[in-house]
Structures are given as C-alpha cells and as structure tokens.
C-alpha cells in the first residue's frame, strides 16, 4: 500500500481535487453565485496560517520547547480578538483603494510610494523564502518517511544532482499548479475565489487528518488520556517536558513569542492575502473572530498527547515526524497516507497563497514600475500589455518556488521546522510598525517607514538569517559564538552584550525597536508630501467615513485616453466595464478618472496606477489640498453638528426645567393665597362668636345671671380656640422656615401615649368614640420633645375620632417595635383614605381643597394644619409619619415611626 505509485497517485489525485474545487469556485463566482460568501469559509481560509509547520512542527516543538508551541496560535487569537479595531480598518481601506498586497497597502499609506512598495516586496521575498522552503522540505520529508519506514530517512541532498532531488520536482509541480489556478485572471479586484474555496477545503482536510492521528494515539496506542498521562508522568524524562522552564528564554521568551506571533499573523503576506484581499464582506470578520481561534484550538488540542506518545514509544526518532511515524509504527497503512495528505494539504495551502501573494508583490511593486519607467516599453508595445502582466506573474511564481527550493537544498537542514518558521515570522513582523502605526497615526511618514524597515530588516538579517547561514556551514560558526572579527559585542545572539535572552526575543527587541524608533523619530522631524498627507488622512479616518474618496483628480483627459490606457493593461472587456460607453472625445469627469485609477491599482498596484494616470491626465494631477480640506471640513462639520445637537438638547431640557419651576412657583403662589384665605376664615370664626357675645353682654345689662355666665363661657372658650389656632399657625411657620425649636430628650413613648389618651378620653367619650389601646412595646424608649410628641399623639387621636364611623365610632391606638424603630399607629373605622389621597392629607389646606371639590362628607372640624404640623415635628425627630389602611379597624391608619433611643450610658 505504501508503494511509490500509490503515494504519488494519492498526492496528484489530491492536487487534482483541489484544482477541481478551485475551478468550480471560479465558475460559480463568474456566475455570481459565490461559494465563499460565508463567514465560515472565510474563517477556514484564514486557517492557511496552519502550515506543515503546524502539522508536523507543533509536535516537534512541543517535545523540545514545551507549551510554547501554543504561543504561535495564541498570538493570532489575540489578533482576531482585535479584529474590530485593526483588521476591519485594513479591510475597509483595501476595499476602497483596491489594494492587493501588504506591499501595496504600505506603499499606498505612505503616499503611494514606489520605493516603499518595492522594499516591502523585497523583504517579503527574502524573509518568506525560507518559509516556502520549509513547506517543500516537509512534503519531501514526509514522503521519504512514508516510503522508507521503518528505515531511517537518508539525507544526502548536497551530493545528489538536483534532478534526483524530489523537492525540486515538488516545487516544479506546485509552480505549475499555482500558475494554473492563480493567474487565470488579471484584475486582482476579481478575487481568487476558487483559490479561497480550495484553501478552505484544505483546512478541513488537515484538521481531520491531525485529529485522526491524535485520536488514534489516545485511544488505540493508549487506553485513553488517563493512561497516556499516567505513563508520561511516570517517566522521569518527560516529567518536566511541559514546564515553563522548557521554554527558551523563560517568561521573557514567552512574551516575545506571543508578540511575534501576534504581529506576524497580521503581516505575513499570505495572511494579508486571505484576511484582507480575499475578504468579500467586512461582516465576515465577526464570525471569523471566534471561529478561527476555535479552529486553532481544535488543531492544537491533541498535539501534547501525540508528542508524549512519540517520546514514550519512539525514543530517538525525529519528533517532527511523530505524526507520521506513530501510526506507521503501529503497522497501519491507511492512516499514514491520510496524514501524508493532511501534511501535503497544509503545505500546499501555504505555498499556494504565499506564492500568489508574493508574485503579486513582485510584479506590481518591483517589475511593473521598472517596466513603466523604461520608456522603451511604451514605444515598443503600443498593443495590449495584458499578456505581459500575466507573464510576469507566472515567471514570478516559478522564480519564488525555485528560490524556495534553492534555500531548502542549500541550507534547509540546519533548522527544525519551527525554527525556520519563526525566522520568517520575525521578517514579516518588520512590517508591523509601518502598517499598524500608519493606521492610527497620521504623522507617520514615508522617510520614517523606509528607514525603519531598512534598519529592522538589517538587524533581522544579522541576528537571525546570518546565524542560520553559519549553522549551515556557509559562515564560520565563530561568527555566532565569538562575533565577527572576534568582536564580542557584535555577537548576533547577544547584540551589544544583551545576553540571556532567547534569540527571537533578542532579535525582535533590536529589530522592532530600531524599526519603530526610526519610524517615529524620522516622522517627527521630516516633512510629509501632500499625497502622503491625503493618504494618511484616508487611512487613519477609514472607519469614520462611509464613502472614502480614493483620490480626487483635478486634471483633464478624455474618456478615449482612459479607455486606451485600460484596454492596454487590462483588456478591452475591463475597459468597457469600467468606463461604460460614452463619447470618447469628451473630457472625462474626475469620478471616471478615479475609477480608472482604482481599476489599474487592482491589477498593477497603487504606485504604478498613479504613474499611469499621471501619464494621460494633463495639468494639475491631484488636488491634495482639496481632499484634505474635504476630509477636515467634513469632520469639522460633523463635530459642529454634534455640538449643536447637544446644545439644543440641553436648551430643550433647561426650558422644560424652567417651565416646571415656573409651574411650581405658580402652584406655591396659589397655595399661599389659599393659606391666607383659610387662615383668615379660621380666625374669623371664633372671633365672630367672641364679638357677638361681647356686644350682647355689653348691650344687655339686664341679662339673667345664667345666660350671662353661659355667654362669658363661650367668649372664653372661643378665645382659647383662637389662641390655639394662632399657635398652630406660628408652629407651621416655624416648621417651614426651619426655626422650630425642639428640646429632645430620652422618653418613653408608651408613657406618652397613655398621657395623650388620658387627655382626649373625655372629649372622645362625649363624641361617643370607643377607644381601644394595644401597647405592645412598654417601655418604648425614643428621643423626642415630650410636649411636641404628645401634641402629635393627641392630634392623631383627635383626627381619628373625627374620621371614624358616624354610627359606632372606634379608634385604636397601638404601639409596637419594628426592627430598631417604634411604631405608634392610630386607626379608625371610618371610610379610609384612597391610595392617591394619602400623601395629600399632609398638605396644609387639604380640607379647603376637599371642600372646593364639593365633597358631600361632613367637614371635620379643625384647621387642617394638625397633620402637616405633626409630620413636620416627627420628621424633625428623625421619624416618619404616613397613612395606610387600618389592619384591625378597616379605616385609615396613621402611623408614626421613631427610631429607638440609644442605650443610656
């Protein structure tokens, strides 16, 4: 089953299947029924992040570096969690400006700078080549393991001619394959839908294959996780395998690696391709933000069991191949083949996307600008250049893969899989300062970006790439150990004497540090060109504007000239689509020029597109000031509008408050009039009797003694009533002005209640009111003014007597403890007080209002000031007074609550 033929058939069959899926995806896309318009497919396509490095290398890294392999996936998890802040912005900008690669993106941000684009493309090419080599190595290695097992793999690369080297043929086959489905179109704005569909499929294949090995290991080779971990725990060699101490660089190395993975995830060309360029709908980011991390979790879940099993069962064999050798060692046939296909899919997925991304960069940022500058080309080829462009792409793809092969063939053996991957990560991370800072800081400029990138790249070469060469024997090892020319402070792994760091944190610190310092420093002290200012504004403000202008052209050209330009580079079909039909001799409106530029940018990169448009548009090419002022004015207007809105809302609110206050004042005024009228009425009533009888007594000298005494008694009684009334009015005035003087002391409320009862007893008996008493708390110590409180109690009793039932009036006084308060309640068996009336009985003049509303119930005698005064007094003593339904007698119950007095001490 493991014959060469079967393996080859499986591999090619798999590639053919991929091709079919891609072709199907492309056809569906051209029919307008996209298969990738789903957030799940988008998330799966992002999983191109998991390469052969994940598939084989995670286990290898787990055996030597413990849990740190997880960092490579925790970093991207953080990056995806930050998608609403970072990726969404990138996606929106790329869509608005038709940016097709990270080189294009960075170049566009810094004023569509051709130099910067070329620099990014070059760094990407150099930095990523080892990574592609790694995939080739993985395919070749897994193939070799599969064929020669159980014999050890025999590596004699250097001695073999290249045509005998399988990697060479793998590279070639892949190149053809990628050319076949990566360069079928030119206009990159038509995304590679077929490719994305194929990549999503590949992500499923590698996940399934890896999980299959993991489950096989756990449940076939061992009797479940408990068994495996028990055996591993028993082995002294494995006990410390997953300690933090196993991680290179310890806690510092840990953080460094987390940062590296976070940055690389955003800056690796293939990740940029699938995350940003191939994104068809910004909203897909939301699902992908958690689905992709979930994928990562799933594919890493069983890494440790496999690593442990490999270390237990296959001591001494290559940990990078455990995934394959574990099922092989059990004598299986089918599973190893599935694993091989899984690894193949992980590797091809990466190579396909990476190569397409790199070839786009190479052709758009390096070759095309150079060709466009060579005027020779303009003269010689007035015809269609479309073929040229496609040719360049195809050659680029071939070149990239051959470069990968060369790297692999010449020095690929020195490093394990993960090590090569990390070196590439560190190279890609150099784009992060220019990319991320450029998204948020308008001031970042081209000079800073270029110098920063150059410095970062140089340090990367020195601290990571050259030591790699040294380990492959290209350079003397002393270069690493003693420093060049024996200069100790120049040792690549301990630059300037920074020792004790792991090499990645070390390299990251120096390269990113210098990169960032140069970017910030130079940006602060060198000027920005006007185009840069425009682009910086467009990039940093991307999320605040819905329709982002891609550029405003002020110059003049005709539709015909634009059409010639477009058909020359993109073909007549595209030209018709972009420009539609119209009179070719007419001047083209600025919108049309902008559209042409975007179409060109999609295929050639923004820098080249600008050069081309400049070549046909006469006069003032770009009115940068206008764009800037439009942007600024818009944001200023928005701000002004927002403030106006705020102010008017505030005004409306204040107006309402004023109206309410005015209403309240009017109400108070009305109440004051009522009060005065009522006071006058209440004062006049006793006064009337007094005056009448006084006059009667004065005029009638011959009155019988009995009458005389009766009338004098009335005069005295009414005078008393008058003075009581005046007293009440004064109390109320004092209460309201806060000048009521109370002399609080500790007193027994029960005693006071009994006093009050005694005081009203006679009067109530006259009225026929039966008084009931239930004093449960005795004594009930509170703090209060005894005279005032007695006044309140008498008032409550008096009140209750008036409101009690006419036929059989009953009043009940109860005193009980409630938490740390005492409650004195006076109930009656009258009609009670309606819910909405209950607060109003505490308003002074309440009676007057009742009367005015024409109620038929006999008006109780009294000034109507008793309850408001009582409430005021109780409140002054820290208590409360309210009305509720009487629980025993069914009428109203007035409840007075006072806090318990503190213990005497």
């Amino acid at each position, binding site marked *: 089953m493991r014959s060469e033929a079967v393996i080859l058939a499986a591999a090619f069959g798999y590639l053919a299947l991929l091709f079919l899926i891609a072709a199907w995806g492309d056809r569906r896309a051209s029919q307008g029924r996209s298969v990738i318009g789903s957030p799940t497919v988008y998330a799966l396509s992002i999983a191109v992040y998991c390469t052969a490095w994940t598939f084989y290398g995670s286990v290898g890294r787990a055996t030597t570096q413990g849990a740190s392999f997880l960092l490579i996936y925790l970093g991207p998890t953080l990056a995806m969690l930050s998608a609403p802040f970072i990726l969404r912005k990138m996606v929106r900008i790329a869509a608005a400006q038709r940016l097709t690669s990270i080189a294009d993106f960075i170049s566009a941000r810094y004023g569509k700078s051709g130099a910067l684009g070329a620099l990014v493309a070059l760094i990407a090419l150099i930095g990523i080549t080892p990574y592609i080599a790694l995939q080739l190595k993985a395919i070749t290695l897994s193939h070799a393991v599969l064929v020669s097992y159980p014999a050890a793999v025999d590596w004699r690369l250097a001695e073999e001619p290249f045509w005998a080297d399988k990697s060479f043929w793998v590279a070639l086959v892949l190149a053809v394959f990628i050319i076949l489905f990566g360069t079928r179109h030119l206009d990159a704005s038509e995304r590679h839908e077929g490719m994305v569909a194929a990549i999503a499929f590949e992500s499923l294949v590698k996940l399934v294959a890896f999980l299959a090995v993991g489950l096989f290991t756990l449940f076939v080779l061992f009797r479940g996780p408990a068994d495996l971990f028990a055996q591993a725990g028993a082995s002294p060699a494995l006990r410390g395998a997953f300690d933090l101490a196993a991680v290179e660089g310890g806690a510092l190395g840990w953080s460094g690696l987390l940062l590296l993975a976070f940055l690389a995830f955003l800056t690796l060309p293939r990740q940029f391709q699938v995350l940003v360029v191939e994104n068809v709908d910004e909203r897909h980011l939301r699902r992908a933000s958690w689905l992709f991390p979930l994928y990562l979790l799933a594919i890493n879940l069983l890494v440790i069991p496999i690593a442990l099993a490999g270390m237990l069962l296959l001591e001494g064999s290559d940990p990078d191949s455990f995934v394959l050798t574990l099922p092989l060692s059990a004598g299986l046939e089918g599973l190893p083949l599935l694993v091989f296909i899984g690894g193949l899919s992980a590797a091809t997925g990466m190579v396909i996307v990476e190569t397409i991304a790199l070839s786009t960069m190479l052709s758009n940022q390096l070759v095309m600008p150079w060709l466009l500058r060579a005027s020779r080309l303009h003269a010689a080829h007035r015809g269609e250049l479309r073929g040229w462009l496609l040719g360049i792409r195809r050659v680029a793809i071939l070149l990239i893969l051959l470069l990968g092969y060369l790297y692999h063939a010449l020095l690929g053996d020195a490093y394990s899989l993960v090590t090569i991957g990390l070196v590439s990560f560190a190279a890609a991370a150099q784009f992060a300062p220019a990319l991320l800072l450029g998204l948020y800081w308008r001031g970042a400029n081209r000079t800073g970006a270029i110098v920063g990138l150059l410095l970062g790249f140089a340090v990367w070469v020195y601290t990571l790439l050259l030591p790699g060469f040294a380990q492959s024997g290209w350079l003397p090892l002393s270069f690493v150990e003693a420093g060049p020319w024996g200069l100790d402070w120049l040792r690549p792994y301990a630059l300037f004497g920074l020792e004790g760091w792991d090499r990645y944190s070390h390299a990251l610190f120096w390269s990113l540090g210098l990169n960032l310092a140069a970017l910030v420093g130079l940006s602060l002290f060198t000027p920005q060109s006007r185009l840069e200012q425009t682009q910086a504004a467009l990039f940093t403000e991307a999320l605040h504007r819905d329709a982002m202008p891609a550029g405003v052209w002020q110059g003049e050209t005709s539709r015909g000239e634009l059409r010639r330009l477009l058909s020359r580079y993109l073909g007549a079909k595209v030209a018709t689509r972009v420009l539609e039909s119209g009179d070719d001799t007419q001047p083209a409106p600025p919108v049309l020029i902008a559209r042409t530029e975007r179409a060109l940018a999609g295929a050639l990169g923004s820098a080249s597109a600008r050069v081309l448009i400049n070549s046909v548009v006469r006069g003032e090419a770009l009115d940068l000031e206008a764009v800037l002022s439009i942007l600024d004015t818009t944001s200023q207007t928005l701000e002004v509008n927002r403030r106006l809105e705020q102010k008017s809302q505030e005004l409306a609110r204040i107006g309402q408050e004023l109206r309410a206050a005015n209403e309240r004042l009017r109400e108070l005024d009305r109440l004051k009039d009522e009060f005065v009228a009522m006071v006058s009425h209440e004062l006049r*009533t006793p006064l*009337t*009797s007094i*005056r*009448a009888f006084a006059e*009667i007594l004065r005029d009638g000298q011959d009155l019988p003694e009995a009458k005389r005494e009766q009338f004098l008694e009335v005069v005295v009684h009414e005078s008393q009533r008058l003075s009581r009334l005046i007293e009440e009015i004064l109390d109320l005035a004092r209460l309201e002005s806060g000048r009521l003087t109370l002399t609080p002391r500790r007193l027994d409320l029960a005693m006071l209640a009994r006093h009050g009862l005694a005081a009203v007893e006679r009067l109530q008996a006259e009225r026929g009111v039966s008084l009931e008493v239930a004093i449960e708390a005795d004594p009930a110590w509170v703090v209060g003014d005894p005279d005032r409180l007695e006044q309140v109690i008498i008032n409550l009793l008096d009140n209750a007597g008036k409101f009690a039932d006419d036929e059989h009036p009953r009043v009940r006084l109860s005193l009980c403890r409630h938490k740390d308060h005492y409650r004195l309640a006076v109930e009656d068996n009258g009609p009670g007080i309606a819910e909405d009336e209950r607060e109003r009985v505490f308003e002074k003049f309440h009676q007057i209002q009742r009367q005015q509303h024409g109620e*038929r119930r006999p*008006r109780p005698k009294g000034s109507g000031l008793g309850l408001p005064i009582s409430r005021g007094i109780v409140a002054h003593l820290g208590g409360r007074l309210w009305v509720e339904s009487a629980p025993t007698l069914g009428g109203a119950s007035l409840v007075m609550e006072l806090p318990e007095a503190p213990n005497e001490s």
Partner: protein
Amino acid sequence: MPKVLVVDDEPNIVLSLEFLMQQAGFEVTTAEDGESALARVAEAGPDLILLDISLPDLSGFEVLERLRQTPRGATLPIIMLTAHGREVEREKGLALGADDYITKPFSTQALVEKVKALLDEAR
C-alpha cells in the same frame, strides 16, 4: 311674629344669632347644614333666612340657588353670612339673589337693623 331661620355650622355663632333674633322679637329656627336648611324652609316657612356660606354639605350659594327656584323661596329675604372677606364672594352672592351680605365678625346692632329693615321691606 316673623320667623327667622338661622343656618350655620358653628354652634356658638348659632347661639349668638338665636339670642339676638329672639331679643329683637322674632321666632327662631336653626339648621346646621344645607339640606336641613332646605327642609326647615319647607316645613316652618320662615320670613327671613340668615345663611352662612361655609356649610358642611352644600355651600351657602347652592342653598341660595335652590331656594330661589322654589315658589316659596323665590322672594324670601336672605342675608348671606361669611367668614371669607373676599369681594368676589359678595358679588357672587348678590348675583345669585341674596338680599344682603354680612361679613363675620359682624356688629350685632347692624345685623339686627338689617334684618328688621328687610322684614319691613318684605311686608
């Protein structure tokens, strides 16, 4: 002997008015709310009414209004008594057909004279 009906809810005021009217030589009946005042008018047939405005059930104005609608009460001399000193109430009372209007506290002498004058007029 002319009959006077005294309507007020303050017992002491009723007491003083009753005494004053008796002293002046009239027969006196009393009522302490609006409904009983209307009933007294029907049963006792007074020649003059001293009517307080603030009564517990009906206001004095209502009593006045209803009396004026009955054949017996249409021409009956009625003096309104009030503890409210407001001009509007006086106008309202006169507009509703009160013959005179006295503010509390009142001069006993003036009150008696007014009653006598009105009774003479009516006769």
